[in-house]
């Protein structure tokens, strides 16, 4: 039982780290999307067919079978990025593939700007949050141990 708070702390810390990695993967995805639309005008189906996202595995699989927006909603539980960021992705998804190249590229640029800001915020926040989670978990675990002793 003393380990439980520590494990909870570790889990919380890992969740923050996973969120950070997922933001990185979304940045990579949108950059690739932007390049393939801008330079090759590839259909979305072709772009998503070969996609591999190690930290968003089910999402990348779902993209082959459903729209970007549907795939996001289908994987909300597994996508641990912040709500604001998620809403931005949904808004982007609602316009994806609905207009010409120039507008699609502009949409990608706007989303990339938001995602990069989020990444920068997380790069300072995540180490702090991880420290706090691990410390609190450790302390709670130690207290419980003392209580039992």
């Amino acid at each position, binding site marked *: 039982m003393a380990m439980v708070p520590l494990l909870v702390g570790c889990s919380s810390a890992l969740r923050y780290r996973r969120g950070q990695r997922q933001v990185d993967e979304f940045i990579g995805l949108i950059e690739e999307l932007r390049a393939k639309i801008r330079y090759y005008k590839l259909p979305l*189906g072709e772009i998503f067919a070969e996609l591999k996202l190690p930290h968003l595995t089910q999402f990348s699989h779902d993209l082959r079978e459903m729209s970007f927006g549907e795939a996001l909603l289908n994987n909300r539980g597994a996508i641990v990025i912040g709500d604001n960021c998620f809403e931005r992705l949904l808004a982007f998804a609602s316009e994806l593939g609905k207009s010409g190249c120039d507008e699609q590229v502009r949409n990608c640029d706007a989303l990339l700007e938001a995602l990069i800001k989020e990444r920068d915020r997380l790069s300072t926040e995540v180490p702090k949050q991880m420290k706090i989670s691990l410390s609190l978990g450790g302390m709670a675990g130690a207290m419980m141990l003392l209580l039992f002793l």
Partner: protein
Amino acid sequence: MNPYLVKMLAYLPGRLAEAVAAVGETCTVNEIRIREGSALCVTCEGENRLLSPVVTPDEIAYTVDRLCGSSVHAHEDTIREGYISVEGGYRVGVCGMAVHKDGEVSAVRGIKSLNIRIPRDIYGVGGRLLERIRHSRFRLSVLIYSRPGIGKTTLLKDLALTLSKEYMKRVAIIDTRREFRIAEDAGVDLLVGYPKGKGIEIALRTMNPEYIICDEIGNAEEAEAILSVQNAGVPFIASAHAGSAVELWHKPNIRRLLEAGIFDLCVGITRKQGASQYSFAFTEIDEFSRLN
């Protein structure tokens, strides 16, 4: 029901697809017209029929999205030219509001009308025309003309496949609008999506064709492209829109080609509604001089 129609129904919203399918059970649907705010319209064997559903803006948007594979950006070049090419050889005409940039149409917005042409395969219809080509020892350049919807592309495709498979000729097809629907084992060189001038240039430079086939020539750029390669010695089979030889002769760009001797023979084609056989009206090139 024509399998090409069945496949196209999958792109339409449910209630429009149902209405077209009901008609498709009893007659051959050649075209489906979807106009925002108007009744759904189908053309069956030359006859236009209005169906009960009135098309909504959402249904137009849904159909465009489906036709483009949710990737309008991938089709913006052809949409600018007024059509969407759908895999399988479908050509969908698009009407909307043109956006201009530097004096040219840069985009189309507010699409409100779609015309879906349903293809069908007819083979072995070359008939007397193929005989003429064969008798010329495959040196005859031919211009096929008719009004829209008679089947010029279908005939060109049949000629291409026959020349390639039966007579073992090296055939290059300039398929600018992705309409030819040629199987991979057809044994023809297919240049898909190329403007005709560029396609002809590449075909001559790299594919050493014994016949070049292209559909719907008519503008100045295409005429120029064909004229520029007239000394290459490769015969053409091409098509153009015209209801008669006189009308053909009065199209300036076509006339340039005829006067330059690009084509040896002009062939007007007609076909009864629902029939698969063509009637041919041959006009030798020297007969055109009497039209002056």
